[in-house]
Every structure is written in structure tokens, then in C-alpha cells.
């Protein structure tokens, strides 16, 4: 953990000095995952790519926002992207993006699955939270930083999101019912 923070600090200091290789490496390390995350948040592949580009451009043109003592660089990046996605949502409502059809295998292709369908039935905030925790491995503290809420709130929201997903997921699976406990 300490090593990671040190690496983050070194990377950021190089970026502050306008080191192109450092930023290029930073971009390559995070762009794909960030775009996948934004895809979940925006529901649109094109919007995800646009917001990702805007986020990285912001990081390059205004690099002074990151404060190492507040958390990892990745958490800062995802937090910035989340805020940009929120701006995107505010511009979009009440419109909806054009239906996107993806076909076949390969990078970016979306295979239908029970979990994919179940995930889409959650609110975008719940999808975002689960993705950050389960896929990106963000800690409670990092999630608190990204979302701008206390750690305790992160914990309870994660629980609520998991329960919502669990309920939908079980409903999608024929013949499988969630086992419910009883009170005393």
C-alpha cells in the first residue's frame, strides 16, 4: 500500500512536470478500465469514451487537483470521472441515448448474461458503486473519497446495492430462490 502511494506520488510529480511518458503510461494503465466503468454509469459506449477523454484531458491540463494524502491516484481519477459523468447525466435528462447494439465477441462486445441484465435493473448509482468495489477493488476509504460521503455511508450503500442486485439476480434465475433467514 505504501509502495503504491509512493508510485502514485512519483507518477503525479512527473505529470506535474509535464512528462509525456508518465502521462502516457498513466493513460494506458487506466483508460480501458475507466471507460468500462463509465459505460456502466452512462449506459452509452460513446458517452463513456467521451467522458473518459474529457477526464484525461482535465488531468493533463489541470493536474494540481490530486492530493496524495487523500488517497490513491486511481481513486482520484475515478472520482473525477464520476463527477464528469454526473455532469453528462445532467445535460442528458430527460433524453435517452440512442439504442446501441453490439454483436459478437471481442473487446467491447457485450455478452448477454443474467448478471448483465440484473445489473442494468439497478440505479446508476448502485451500478457505479458495485463496479467500483467489485471490479476496481476500491476500498471503503477510496469509495468515500470518490463519492464524497462518510465511510459508514459507503458500507450501508454497498449493502443496499448488493441486496438489490441479489434480489434481481435471483428473480432472473429460474428455479433458484434466495434463502431468507427468520427473526427470533
Amino acid at each position, binding site marked *: 500500500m505504501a509502495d503504491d502511494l509512493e508510485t502514485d506520488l512519483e507518477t503525479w510529480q512527473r505529470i506535474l512536470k509535464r512528462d509525456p511518458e508518465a502521462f502516457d503510461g498513466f493513460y494506458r494503465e487506466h483508460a480501458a478500465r475507466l471507460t468500462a466503468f463509465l459505460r456502466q454509469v452512462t449506459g452509452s459506449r460513446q458517452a463513456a*469514451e467521451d467522458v473518459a477523454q474529457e477526464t484525461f484531458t482535465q488531468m493533463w491540463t489541470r493536474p494540481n487537483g490530486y492530493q496524495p494524502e487523500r488517497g490513491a491516484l486511481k481513486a482520484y481519477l475515478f472520482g473525477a470521472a464520476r463527477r464528469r459523468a454526473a455532469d453528462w447525466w445532467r445535460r442528458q435528462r430527460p433524453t435517452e441515448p440512442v439504442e446501441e447494439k453490439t454483436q459478437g465477441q471481442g473487446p467491447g462486445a457485450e455478452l448477454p448474461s443474467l448478471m448483465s441484465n440484473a*445489473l442494468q435493473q439497478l440505479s446508476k448509482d448502485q451500478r457505479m458503486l458495485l463496479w467500483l468495489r467489485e471490479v476496481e477493488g476500491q476500498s471503503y476509504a477510496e469509495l468515500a473519497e470518490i463519492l464524497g460521503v462518510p465511510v459508514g455511508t459507503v458500507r450501508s450503500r454497498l449493502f443496499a446495492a*448488493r441486496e438489490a442486485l*441479489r434480489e434481481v439476480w435471483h428473480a432472473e434465475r429460474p428455479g433458484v430462490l434466495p*434463502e431468507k433467514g427468520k*427473526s427470533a
Partner: protein
Amino acid sequence: MACRAARRAAGERKERMRCDEAAEFVSALYDGETVTREAAAHIGACAACQARLRDYIEMGVELRRIASLEIPDEIPDNVAAQTWATKAVRQGAVQTWWRKGWETMRIPRFAFAAMVAGILVLASGLALTRVRARSEGSVLLLRLAMPGSDQPVQCPLSTVDKRWQSCGESQVKGDRWYSFDVRLLSSNNGRVRLGTRAASLPLNEGNKLSSALEQQTQHVYEFSPEEPLNVDVENFGSIQITGEWMDHMPQLVGVQEVDPGPNEMRVVAPLLIRDKQVVADFQGASAFPDKPGMVVMLNAPGEGKFLFSLTRMPDAVEGKVNLNRITFASNGQHYTLLSGAPITRAQQVWIRHDAWLVSDSKGNAPQGFIMSVYNMNNAPAGLK
């Protein structure tokens, strides 16, 4: 029953926690957190809580599995930069300089591409009049070549913003109106599905064109900008559709220079103001007559029909032009037509104002506002 069994098995002290109380602790345990002793004891002995934990594990694995399908193993070499580079190269003039710079630059390529795209836009004469980038997503700029017209209709369609996913054109041919619209239905990797409809009505039923169009069967086509699409409209002719992808919604479609050309009028998203009150807002509608004899017609329910022409017309009043506005008087009232761009090089235009409204056969006033451009020399009697 599972929780009663858990209490009996607890042993040392009586377990009072219920499953609904323990549930959030199950989530925390799954996240690698420690929990209270009471919760730990309950979860350890409770089949339902353990089933919940197994579900969380299975859900987490499945989420990461589908994420692994979403996230490519490696990103294409600066995809964003390539996209912006392609658009910059289309500008043409700085192609050589661009390629040389690409090889030797020292800042991240996509950032460089962003800066160059900005410089190109500012350097070209198009920027001031044409571009105010909005990041709604990909825009497909269609060009509709209408029969008998040498000026294609430009139609920007956004893949994200539903306000910009359809457009249309109406024209007079002979003694009939012909209306055509095209709608963006879906997009997929540079190819789109377009829906088109066409309608035709007698000249005196022009106010019913919109509703007539909505009742028509929509024809669906697969379209790619590399392959022109020809759509045949009965008794009207063939409409050829071409297009290109843009990275922004153009603010002024079809306008190349700020300064109007000779014989040209530009009426862009105008407001009609009567005695300092807005009486008509033609939001999003524009007209660009550019040949002698062509006029702009505004039909404003409640106000009447206005024809604007650069040449004198019978029963017309003279209006003064000041950059993007035309002021004139009619029936004892003062009007201003306020346009979103400079209107004409001329200092005056001629306006004919009729109280007559385009109404349907039952005498009902039309719904909404319309704007059209037609040639006075060929206009049917009812529209002169």
C-alpha cells in the same frame, strides 16, 4: 428455524441478533472488514446468513467475469488520438505539418491531437461561425440531395441527444407539397439504421404535412457514410443521402462564412418581435435563400404570413436591415425579425405581410410554426 438453531448452538451466551440485523455485517465481512462479536457468532451459526455470503461471492465473481469481457487486454494505440488525428487530417491544409509533428512530438499524443484540433478550428474561417463544441457524442451529418435542387439539405443527427435525432425537408413541386424526414434509429460501429418517411399533399393543405408524415410507413435503411443511399419518393424523385461523422453538433449548418454572399439571405432560428414582445420563436429552423427571386416565408399563427425578399414585391413594405435584424412596420405595428446570424449584405429587404393564415379545409389555424424557402418566380398562386 435456521436462526433458532443458531441460537441453540451458540452455547456460551444467548444469541439475540436477527438475520436482518446481521445482513449488513455479512456484506462487511465479504468486503474484508471485521465485525462485532455478536454478528460474527450469528453468521457463523446461521445457514441463511452463510447463504447470503455465498451469493455475494458468486455475484462478485460474475461481475468481474463480465467486466473482464468489457475491458480489452490492451487499449488500441492511442485510440482517442487517432480519432482526433483523423478529423484533423480531413482539414487538409496542414496535413504535411501534422504528420511531421506526429513523429517528433514530446507530449502525449492524444493531448497533442486535442491541441492541434483546437488550433485548426481557430485558424480556419469556419470556427467563429460554425463551431462551439458540445460533448453530446458522435454526430452524423447527413446531406440530402433533393431532386431538382443543387443545394443539399444538411441534417445533423446525434447518437446521444434525442433532440437532434431527426430532420426533414418540405418542398413544393407543381401543385403539391412534398415532405420527407429521416430519423436516426440506432448506431453500431459507424453504421446506422435510418428511418425515412415521405408524404405529399395538395398545396392548400400544407398545414397538415406534419401529421400526414407521421402517419406514413417508416422505411428502415442500413447506412454508412462511405456508401451513398438513394431513397425513391413516389412522384417526387430520388433523394440521395450521404454523410460524415463529426465530433460535435454544428451550431450553424450549411454556413461557411459569417458574411452573407451576394443575393443571399440567412434567417437563422429567428424571433419575430412585435412592439417589443416575442410573438413567434422559430427555434432550430433556418432558411438560406441564395438565388434571385427566392424568399423566406414565415407563417406565424396569430400574426400571419410574412414574405421576406431582397427584391421589391407587390404590396410589400420596406424593412431596414441592421446586421442580424430587420425592422419594419405593418398594419400600424412595429416588427423586428431577429436572426441568429447576419442576414444580408443589403441594407433593406421587402416584406409582404398577409393576415391570411395557412389553414385547413375546416378553417382551423395550423399547429406550430413553419418556415419555407421557395422561388417566387415559380411559386403557385396560392403562395405568392
